């Protein structure tokens, strides 16, 4: 009966099943095939095309949008696609991507964190103060202290949202104001005569963004990453097939690995081109790139392959169902807010490293809106349950590209804000329209 099923379907039952499928007209509906498990390449492509037509377009719109934006800027400013500017763009994107990923944790729950611009800045300020004279702590202590500060802030705000059942919008809006005030207070208090700014003297912290891997190390690191990705993908497919499950077609695996290798080669080649000014050579991948990518990989793994990640999606989809399944919902929610804090701290430390200082007039309000925009442009839903870390990566790149390109063209801030707003609106509209197309059939 139901419980003594042998591992494989007996031939009789398989025939029955086939007959039933043959008689059931809806069983031929290819749209039901999950593109992740189609057996052949043709089947995969057909299922993929169906899914796009059905409104599940994945990351295609954002990649397409990114290409369009790049072409527009390149036509206007031939400098845009220069090695120097592209590397600069990657450095600019670092904080947007990190803070976007921070938002993904809470957006998946259907919550939001408006405070991370300033709470992250407070963490970065703590790091800067500890590493600067007169304290002069090493980076090995100052950076963790900065990370811990904002992680703690995230934990406290998460507790307020979860235990007192306050709306996260209001709690973190209060956090936005409070931590802005706290940032001004702590920097003015610590460094009263510097105009509200503390310079970073620790070279390791400065080098998070401004230091580079040697060109050779860049190539080696990229090659190692591609090989590991390829081996893990092939092994995973093989394991599924060995146990009688459908795995993605080999051609697709090959395409994925080749695409990743191509992207890696382009990235390292651009960064390894000499972008020095005035005869001082400067080349190599900035450290911020592997650091951000490591966060993307680690957080994606956490969301996709661990219980914690699964529970975040479950709570975002149906928190009552999650609770009844025995999931400790308050604990997961607090943990999500805590990780938001940790990621935001890392993002603002990168931000401070890029500027070489921490100032009390950081516009944390604008940064957090860019962070939410990055996640949403990438395809993460504001309603919870839908989204990935890679969305923040792509969305952060879009934001940084617009920011960078408009700066290059020489547009004023007024125009920049309005254009950024329109891009965000367009992204959300495309998402909503395609989903409406899906429901209306």
């Amino acid at each position, binding site marked *: *009966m*139901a*419980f*003594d*099923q042998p*591992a494989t*379907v007996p031939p009789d*039952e398989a025939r*029955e*099943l086939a007959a*039933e*499928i043959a008689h*059931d007209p*809806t*069983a031929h*509906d290819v749209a*039901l*095939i*999950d593109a*992740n*498990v189609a057996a052949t390449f043709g089947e995969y492509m057909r299922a993929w095309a169906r899914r796009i037509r059905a409104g599940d377009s994945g990351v295609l719109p954002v990649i397409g949008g990114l290409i369009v934006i790049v072409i527009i800027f390149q036509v206007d400013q031939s400098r845009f696609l220069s090695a120097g500017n592209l590397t600069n763009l990657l450095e600019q994107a670092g904080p947007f991507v990190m803070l976007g990923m921070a938002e993904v944790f809470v957006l998946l729950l259907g919550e939001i964190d408006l405070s991370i611009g300033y709470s992250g800045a407070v963490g970065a300020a703590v790091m800067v103060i500890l590493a600067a004279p007169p304290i002069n702590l090493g980076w090995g202590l100052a950076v963790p202290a900065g990370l811990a500060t904002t992680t703690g802030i995230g934990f406290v705000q998460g507790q307020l949202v979860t235990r007192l059942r306050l709306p996260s919008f209001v709690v973190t809006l209060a956090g936005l104001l409070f931590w802005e005030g706290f940032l001004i207070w702590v920097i003015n208090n610590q460094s009263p005569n510097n105009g509200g700014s503390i310079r970073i003297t620790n070279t390791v912290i400065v080098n998070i963004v401004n230091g580079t891997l040697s060109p050779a190390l860049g190539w080696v690191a990229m090659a190692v990453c591609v090989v590991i990705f390829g081996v893990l993908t092939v092994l995973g497919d093989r*394991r*599924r097939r060995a*146990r*009688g*499950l459908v795995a993605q077609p080999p051609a697709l695996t090959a395409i994925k690995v080749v695409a990743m290798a191509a992207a890696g080669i382009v990235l390292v080649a651009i960064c390894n081109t000499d972008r020095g000014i005035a005869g001082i050579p400067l080349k190599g991948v900035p450290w911020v790139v592997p650091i951000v990518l490591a966060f993307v990989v680690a957080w994606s793994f956490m969301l996709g*392959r*661990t*219980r*914690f990640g*699964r*529970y975040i*999606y*479950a709570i*975002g*989809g*149906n928190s*009552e*169902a*999650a*609770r*009844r*399944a*025995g*999931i*400790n919902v308050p*604990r*997961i929610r607090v943990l999500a807010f805590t990780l938001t804090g940790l990621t935001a701290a890392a993002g603002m430390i990168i931000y401070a490293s890029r500027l070489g200082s921490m100032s009390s007039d950081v516009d944390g309000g604008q940064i957090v809106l860019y962070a939410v925009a990055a996640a949403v442009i990438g395809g993460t839903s504001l309603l919870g*349950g*839908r989204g990935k870390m890679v969305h923040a990566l792509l969305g952060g790149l879009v934001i940084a590209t617009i920011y960078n390109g408009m700066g290059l063209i020489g547009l004023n801030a007024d125009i920049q804000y309005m254009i950024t707003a329109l891009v965000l609106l367009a992204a959300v509209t495309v998402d909503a329209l395609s989903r409406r197309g899906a429901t209306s059939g």
Partner: protein
Amino acid sequence: MIDGLVLGQMTPDSTVPSSDSNAQGARSASADRAPAALAADAPSPPGNGPLLALRGVSKHFGPVQALSGVNLEIVPGEVTALAGDNGAGKSVLIKTISGIWQPDGGQIVWDGQTVHIHTPKDAAALGIATVYQDLALCDNLDIVQNVYLGREIAPRGVLDETTMELTAKETLSGLSVTSVRSIRQPVGSLSGGQRQAVAVARAVMFTARLVIMDEPTAALGVAQTAMVLDLIRRLSANGIAVIVVSHNLNDVFAVADRIAILHLGTMVGNGPTSDFDTQRVVELMTTGAYGGASGNGGSSALEN
């Protein structure tokens, strides 16, 4: 004892690969899946005494007496239909058994031992699974993820998707759910009957000693209702006790071995299905009495 057991069994984020045993257990007979500690303490051969006995269970919400002195015995391998009008206390009763609410008075006896079911987790640890009318599925997760929600197989903290997919597939085909094309499609894209089947698969996969189903056929068409009733028969044929809450008397008579009828929080009728006919059930549901029988007349059936 139950509390200790629960703590050891499944902490959502525990990195201990506790679910390994589940993977094995899901393939074997239902009795093997009972928590080991309980099975050792109180071996109870099938047919020898009730699996679950409620003795004088009461529950009130403020001044409202939702349950008063309810007695009920549930036997392995039998389908018990729980009938009653709206507000009769059916939901309160099953939520009390499922650990969502605590009784204010009376005893819950499981396998001959008095137990206190504080949380749904406690109930799950005992082997009680409840399929609510809203099914409690996450539409954004796929079938495998829903079936395993809260009990993921994760050796060394990493989800073992392959094993979960294989086992979920077996369970679903065992429940004759063949119309689902991909087990990796989001539950939000399934039909009502398929969703019910996923919810039932979720229940029987892990805690197959007592399955409580709240209005399982309320939202279904004729063919899908027949499928779900067949599902219920399969469960009881496997030695699982089933409680079905239903308004639909056709379904009740089609599938139940015993019928228990609540009226305003009191058990007004309780006995083998053969003791009842539609008219008697309707009268008991609506008035709490049948002919000249007193409101407590049903309790005599319990003693049989």
